[in-house]
């Protein structure tokens, strides 16, 4: 635990814990280093492409908690800050990933005790009959205590069209816990922007209890390209030069099509690309080199239906249609 390695202050300054010592100096950098939070922030920077507003906000929260911790050491009283958050953004913009990092950061800063992330959806919170919801919700909340409760697609909790829906009961319990057990639990609500807005509109209590509304922007073309390369590198593949141009073109077209889910679409596309690469290797006569096994060629990408169907509306692009030239 990080608690033990920062309590004996290893800098030579006078102990800041001494009461009434207004002149005690504290090294913020030292504190930052001791908390190891910088590593998490750096990793966040490295592994998550783009998302500048999100990273800025996380940095701000980390700074606040760090300063708060220092204040506590100097025995300056202050209320524990409310850290409930809402993550809004289109599909595939990294909400879940960031939530996981958030749990880690809060743990490093000793705001949460266990650093665990309990991810739930409506199913886990809302019961099927009268009297079933409250114990179910409480069970989940208890399980998440000391860590972060991540409610994905939180707007499904509230169904205004069905007045006998039990979701409201679940929301009420959540509200109560978010208010009374602020030290024990951080709640992160996630979902698509417009639906979350509607959810907060119909639950003003929820809106006021959530201190941080973080919006995840869509990725730009260049960011998606970087993501594609990162993902591929993680799988130990690489693009050939032509393939890189092809994927760039692929992303440009795919972005304009319906059901575009940012990084998730890219991952799916890469999965299919690997499929086609394996297929091609099978069709290739003769022995293969290691280079062959790890290289994705342009033809694997250009075979995608995205190139043939252009602007048309369809659910996915899993076709392995006849190869056509890129536009």
């Amino acid at each position, binding site marked *: 635990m990080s608690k033990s390695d920062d309590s004996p202050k290893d800098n030579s300054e006078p102990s800041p814990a001494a009461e009434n010592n207004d002149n005690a100096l504290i090294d913020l950098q030292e504190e930052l280093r001791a908390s190891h939070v910088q590593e998490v922030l750096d990793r966040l920077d490295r592994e998550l492409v783009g998302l500048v507003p999100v990273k800025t906000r996380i940095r701000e929260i980390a700074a606040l908690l760090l300063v708060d911790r220092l204040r506590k050491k100097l025995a300056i009283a202050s209320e524990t800050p409310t850290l409930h958050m809402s993550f809004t953004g289109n599909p595939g913009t990294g909400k879940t990933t960031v939530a996981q990092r958030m749990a880690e950061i809060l743990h490093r800063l000793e705001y949460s*005790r*266990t650093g*665990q992330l309990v991810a739930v959806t409506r199913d886990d919170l809302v019961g099927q009959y009268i009297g079933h919801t409250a*114990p179910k919700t*409480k069970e989940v*909340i*208890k*399980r998440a*205590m*000391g*860590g972060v409760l991540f409610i994905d697609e939180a707007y499904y909790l509230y169904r205004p069209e069905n007045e006998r829906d039990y979701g409201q009961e679940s929301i009420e319990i959540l509200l109560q816990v978010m208010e009374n*057990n602020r*030290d*024990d*639990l951080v709640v992160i609500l996630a979902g698509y922007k417009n639906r979350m807005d509607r959810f907060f509109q119909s639950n003003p209590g929820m809106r006021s209890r959530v201190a941080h509304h973080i919006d995840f922007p869509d990725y730009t073309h260049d960011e998606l390209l970087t993501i594609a390369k990162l993902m591929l590198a993680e799988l130990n593949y690489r693009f050939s030069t032509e393939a890189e141009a092809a994927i760039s073109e692929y992303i440009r077209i795919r972005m304009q099509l319906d059901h575009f889910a940012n990084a998730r679409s890219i991952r799916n596309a890469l999965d299919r690309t690997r499929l086609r690469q394996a297929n091609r290797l099978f069709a290739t006569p003769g022995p293969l080199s290691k280079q062959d096994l790890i290289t994705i060629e342009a033809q694997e990408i250009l075979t995608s239906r995205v190139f043939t169907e252009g602007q048309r509306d369809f659910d996915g692009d899993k076709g392995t249609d006849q190869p056509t030239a890129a536009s």
Partner: protein
Amino acid sequence: MSIRITQGTFSFLPDLSDEQITKQIKYCIDNGFAVNVEYTDDPHPRNTYWEMWGPPMFDLKDPAGILYEVNECRKAFGNHYIRVSAFDASNGVESLRLSFIVNRPQDEPGFRLERTDTNGRNMRYALHAYSTEKPSGDRYS
């Protein structure tokens, strides 16, 4: 006169604060025990099986969840005895490892010794809790 009953661990000490309770629960969780909250209004020392406040909590990682249940139980049965029990399953059966009282009634009237003549000049003794003279539910109101 109030007689504090002494059942379970720590019962000769002053009542535990919430912080102390949390630390005890933390110890239980760290050892992998399942923690259970129970309540009763019968203070007899042989009253082993208390009412369960919800099912035992197996999968919690943090004491806050259990303290939450303790507080919920206090809200509902503030004037009852409430205890926290920890069960260890590593022996193959759930065996009680730790049990301590976290809540007791405002006023504990204590016990009376009952003597009964039996065969010959033999005496049998029994403990009778004054509070059980009232029906269950009205005992500590």
